[in-house]
């Protein structure tokens, strides 16, 4: 087990360019000690803004530290959704497929759920229109707040590092 993988290997991991056996080895082995920081560095380098990434939140989304001390959820296009402990889906553009017609745009005939039982909700970024998430739920089901990370505990007890701030990152 390497204590730390080379930078290129982590970039391939982020880009999903690893062969299955490489990926399998990584999963089966003890975890490399600096995986989180390395992945965070790769992601940080790829975005066009300077707010330090605190954690990757979901595909295309991050929790970042703002100069005024707030932690917000931000898309890689730069659009900022909300505070890190709020539900970003409330601020997303939502397309709801709840009719036969809307389902048939993307499903073959007879291969989709019945619109009375299930609707498809597609969440888009208002900044870049990227499809960020899809949920398939009963009509009327609330927008669930799925993930509220405990950032302080993660940094203090899991990786034992200080939480990035705009000052530490630019230094």
């Amino acid at each position: 087990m390497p204590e730390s993988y080379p930078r290129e290997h982590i970039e391939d991991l982020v880009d999903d360019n690893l062969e299955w056996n490489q990926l399998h080895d990584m999963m089966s082995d003890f975890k490399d000690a600096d995986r989180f920081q390395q992945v965070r560095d790769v992601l940080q380098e790829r975005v066009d803004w300077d707010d330090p990434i605190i954690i990757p939140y979901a595909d295309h989304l991050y929790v970042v530290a703002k100069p005024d001390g707030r932690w917000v959820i931000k898309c890689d296009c730069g659009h900022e959704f909300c505070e890190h402990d709020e539900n970003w889906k409330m601020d997303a553009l939502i397309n709801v497929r709840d009719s036969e017609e809307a389902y048939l745009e993307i499903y073959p005939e007879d291969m989709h759920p019945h619109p009375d039982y299930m609707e498809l909700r597609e969440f888009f970024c208002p900044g870049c229109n990227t499809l960020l998430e899809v949920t398939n739920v009963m009509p009327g089901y609330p927008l669930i707040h799925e993930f509220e990370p405990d950032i302080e505990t993660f940094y203090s007890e899991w990786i034992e590092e200080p939480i990035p701030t705009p000052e530490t990152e630019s230094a």
Partner: protein
Amino acid sequence: MASSEDDPTTQHDAQILSIDAGGTMTDTFLMDSNGEFTVGKAKTTPDDESRGFIKSSQDALEDWDLSVEEGFPDLVSTVYSGTAMLNRLVERESEVDVGILITGGMEDTLRMGRGRQSYTGYSYSDRLHVNTHKHPEPLIPRNRIRGVRERIDVKGNTLVPLYEDDVREGVNDLLDQGVDHIVVMFLHSYKNGEHEHRTAEIAREIIDERGAETSVMLSSEYYPTLKESERLNTVTAEAFAAEPSRDQLSNIQEAVDEQGGTVGVRVMASHGGTIDINANELARTLISGPIGGMIGANYFGQKLDYNNLVCTDIGGTSFDMGIIIDNDWQIDYSPEMARLLLSLPMVNMESVGAGTGSYVRVNPTFDKIELGPESAGDQVGVSAVETDVETVTVTDCHVAMGWINPENFLGGDMPIDREVAEQEIKEQIADPLDMGVYEAAQGVIDILESKLRNDLEAVVTGEGYAPSNFKCLSYGGGGPVHTAGYTKDLGFDEVLIPEWAAGFSAFGCGAADYEYRYDQTTSIDIDPDLSMEEAAATAGEALTEVWTNLEQKVENEFENSNIGRDEIDFQYNILGQYQGQLNSIDIESPVGRVDSPEKLEQLLDTFEEGYRRQYSEEARSPELGHTITQASVRGVRDVVKPEIPTEELQGPEPPADAYKETREAYWDGEWLDTEIYDLHALQPGNELSGPAVLEGAATTYALPPDCETRLDEHRVHHLTTTE
């Protein structure tokens, strides 16, 4: 190289040659008519395996001052096993292109595989975690698989006739793609092969018309067994992996002929016998596990009158266990190879990824010692200074504890540095855990041996057996150093260690019967309300017919090698169950025909007896009637087998020249003066008590302080604990 004795002046006639061509090295085991043996090694030559084979044989023969030309004419038995076939499967790469015709709608059978295939062959933790599961790459790409409309049901009735135009179109398309073999697999063809046979006729016509050299292989001819996924995998493996090896095997035979040999080369097959290189079904020589040891153990048991054995084999990478009851092994009908489930009969063994070369590491999350699953294999460990192993292994721990003599590893062929072992154990294991070096090394051995003990107990008691009814046989190069540890307190009747433990698997290959075996899925019901006469006239006739057909196939295979029917011993087996059950039990039939009431009754009585033994008297339910789910025929022909040595018993005191020295070794937290003996210089009848270490050419037998050993007249050690 290692050999059974050191006096080169003795005349030897090389009788039995068994060769194991591995990925890197080709090992040879040579035995003479007195049961004395020698071992040779050479690099494997993948382009033409016969060169490596000759070199390795030469290396072995040199120990007896013989050249290949002098040695080969005396050979009476030659058994070859190679990994080339298995490698094609593992690498998913073959010299040939294969196309498939399959029942329309089932074209994705290979791609979908079985759920189990997404994790078979993985380590325990990778099997548990879903994120490490992944379906293996199919052997054949989707564009070489064509559907044919047809359907036969589970009873063999035609539901949809064969659409012959689909066959023509599919064959032409596959030929356009230049395939070398066309595999045909239709649903339930094991029950009714008509559609497959008609398909073969049409395909061969087209192949002839087009002047192609493509061959056609039918699943109903090769592996007529239930479960289409396994059946397709197996016939495909036959075409993809086994057929290309025919040339290699012919080269080996030619090499033998050229050197004046007159013996036919045979290949080890998964069912536990050897078959001719011209056999129709070659895929069954794909062997992934070390079944040679099981065959050797069974032969050993038959010769020395041990009926029930638990076989344990420790090598560099794995611990393999198997059970022999009443001098027969159990068969696994759906073994896994290269992450594919196949429909082949294979000698059943359980394997766990722990061996003498297993890596030892400290899990940084939990601060505890973990073993494997990866290993240094034949690279031994960090103390083997000529290798580039960086992680401590189990063997390194034994070296540090003084159990293994650094000067004598593999007879001194592998230089070992004890200081390196101690230093690395300190840095990698002891310091992070705040322990002493020897304490840590002892901890590693304890963890390994308790793991092996648990696995072994699970294999025996998990099957419902009591260890006290078994003798535990220990072999493999790494076996005897651990035997006392992993058999401790399990309550085996006896623990046996043959002196030739390191060469036991190769010995087993030499001891394998010349045997063909054919199996066929059946669904023959014997209803409870029938009289024995009625049952014999219906079910009895049906089973007899299946057996007769299988017998014919066995006969045909032997005929390929010019062996007549009168030289073959037939044995008849069934898988049977009470009607409505899910699992069948394996029964060796006392009769080869059941078309009369008396004979059928004998078979049913044998089934009842087998059921009683496996489950209990109370579990028997003959009132439900019986179903025969599979019929098998084994045909065996006598071959020359290795002799088990028999020597005159001497006194309990070992001869003076067997004693080598006294050195300190670490046993259970203490450094004790330990007597070191030459394993091969001990005499039958000698008794030793621990702590002692018996050093052989390729193995080390460790005798802890509370143990005793006695060497019997067959050069087999009997290990006991003193209480």
